[in-house]
């Protein structure tokens, strides 16, 4: 009788200890270091989701790289949508603060990116809800840097930070 009670108590103690260690560590890791996410939509074709609705790419999102809000032109980043805070969008960084971009479909032909903001665009112009619709986004909305495609296995690759030459900023601020 005493033996079975002791077993239950030890089990409960081990469970609580595991729970209070494992859950915060796992949550902190997923929030601060890295997590994975499935990409939906066609706004980043052909880099992401080239197959359309048949197969969605799963990407590795690296939070650690953007902890100081440092991004480069050409990076693929995920950010909180400025129009809908419940949604995250994944786009490519085209211009940093101080650059002047030539827009596609924006109400102004040329836009200077204000301090603390970036200009993002999807690779599939015309099918992308990006800065050409909502203007420059604040760096505070930056969520993570997408570094690799993890799934499907035949699309396993590192995502390169390339800026298409026709989308280079008209003028960049020298740092």
């Amino acid at each position, binding site marked *: 009788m005493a033996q079975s009670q002791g077993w239950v108590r030890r089990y409960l103690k081990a469970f609580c200890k595991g729970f209070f260690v494992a859950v915060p*560590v796992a949550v902190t890791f997923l929030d601060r270091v890295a997590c994975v996410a499935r990409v939906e939509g066609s706004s980043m074709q052909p880099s992401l989701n080239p197959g359309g609705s048949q197969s969605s790419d799963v990407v590795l999102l690296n939070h650690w790289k953007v902890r100081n809000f440092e991004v480069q032109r050409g990076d693929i980043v995920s950010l*909180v949508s400025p*129009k809908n*805070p419940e949604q995250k969008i994944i786009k490519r960084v085209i211009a940093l603060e101080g650059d002047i971009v030539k827009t596609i479909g924006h109400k102004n032909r040329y836009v200077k990116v204000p301090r*603390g*903001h970036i200009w993002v665009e999807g690779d599939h112009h015309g099918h992308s809800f990006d800065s050409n619709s909502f203007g420059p*986004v*604040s760096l505070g*909305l930056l969520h993570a840097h997408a570094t690799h495609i993890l799934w499907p296995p035949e699309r396993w690759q590192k995502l390169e930070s390339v800026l298409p030459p026709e989308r280079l900023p008209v003028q960049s601020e020298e740092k």
Partner: protein
Amino acid sequence: MLRGALGKTFRLLGYTIQYGCIAHCAFEYVGGVVMCSGPSMEPTIQNSDIVFAENLSRHFYGIQRGDIVIAKSPNDPKSNICKRVIGLEGDKILTNSSSDFFKSHSYVPTGHVWLEGDNLKNSTDSRYYGPIPYGLIRGRIFFKIWPLSDFGFLRDSPNGYRFSDD
């Protein structure tokens, strides 16, 4: 003796990581203590006051007009601002002071909020940088801890805003 010291170091590291992660989860999902600086929220919050902020409202999208929020500054993501929510998405906002002859107004876009400090004469807020995206809001301030003479829940706006649902 070296093995004992190494064991102790690893255990210390383990505890630090564990408590660090618990602290992150607490600040991120529940709330924490914040010290405010600056004159933009006087007289409701003075410089160097210590307040309690909760982050549950942000996650459940329960921020309302009249709430005092902490948000990331739109022009500098590494610093925080502390202002009152004057308008939510779709609200009509007067962008000129009422003493001007021509009143101009604008509507707060979807997914954005309009913030103003209580100290209107000395506050850089949405009247300067426009509405900010909801995603920049970090938490809601609802209780003052220090100074003890002002301990308690925070007052309504001294600028006479009536936040009825209209």
